[in-house]
């Protein structure tokens, strides 16, 4: 299977959690990780960068300390509105059914409670997303190749069809400029053939 690096944006205003997430996920050598302490900064970076993130791991409660900051759910909505095409994994410190339902409702790939198995689950989610993206890219490439191939076949068929309809192409019938010119004899109304070369009196 083709290998592809996965760009991950980690967004959490909790410094210790961010450090731990970076340390854990960076064990996987196919992951490129960028960290942000606010969702706003992550969105700006995603919009500005040429390579868009494949995955964004967002803390639901991004405004725990700074009440002016945008929450994880708002960032999720913005990612979808801006069509950044990043899959979102929402992290939350507590098992709250409303948080889970809202996250999934607005298009999150998964909702993960920050417990002791959270990093393993996030890592597995990212691996699944990466595999899905590789397959999706391969399908796109294959579809593009098939479309190009069909276009080429259509063009060839078009040219061949035109040639087959023209019998002069194979020399079966001589073309107009090669065929002998017919001499049209003028017909006398009296019924006798007149010499077309005769000089009129």
């Amino acid at each position: 299977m083709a290998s592809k690096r996965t760009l991950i944006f980690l967004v959490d205003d909790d410094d210790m959690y961010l450090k731990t997430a970076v340390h854990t996920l960076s064990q996987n050598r196919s992951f490129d990780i960028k960290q942000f302490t606010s969702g706003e900064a992550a969105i700006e970076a995603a919009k500005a960068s040429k390579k868009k993130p494949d995955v964004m791991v967002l803390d639901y409660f991004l405004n725990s300390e700074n009440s002016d900051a945008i929450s994880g759910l708002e960032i999720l909505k913005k990612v979808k509105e801006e069509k950044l095409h990043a899959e979102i994994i929402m992290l939350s410190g507590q098992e709250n059914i409303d948080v889970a339902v809202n996250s999934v409702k607005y298009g999150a790939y998964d909702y993960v409670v920050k417990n002791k198995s959270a990093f393993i689950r996030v890592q597995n989610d990212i691996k699944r997303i990466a595999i899905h993206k590789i397959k999706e890219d391969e399908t796109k490439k294959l579809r593009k190749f098939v479309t190009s191939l069909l276009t080429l076949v259509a063009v060839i068929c078009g040219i061949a069809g035109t040639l087959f309809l023209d019998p002069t192409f194979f020399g079966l019938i001589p073309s107009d400029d090669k065929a002998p010119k017919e001499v049209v004899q003028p017909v006398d109304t009296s019924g006798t053939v007149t010499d077309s070369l005769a000089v009129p009196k």
Partner: protein
Amino acid sequence: MSDYKHIDMTYLNDLAMGSNDFMIEMLESFTKTTPESIKTMKESIATEDWKTIGGLAHKLKTSYSFMGMDNMVTLSKTLQNFGLEGENLDEIPNMINEMHEEYFKAEKELLLELDKLKND
């Protein structure tokens, strides 16, 4: 077998995957930011800024779990809910004091562990 009474490094050790540098970084970060957060919480009682208390408790909860301070995780969870929901406000000052006392008991062990890691 852990020699500590107030902390348990098992979870952090698992997360570190053999990296002493990571352990040191985490312990240094925890011993620096936790007293600051507790201080801010105490100041927020005077201004009745319950949301700030709830928000800080939310962050501390995760940090305490890394240090294996399970009783502090539970306390932070309750403090977070009280602060953010604005409930049982009269209980909040005592809870913060309890957190403060527990932290200082744990801090001795944390600094001892930090020292061991640095000398490894």
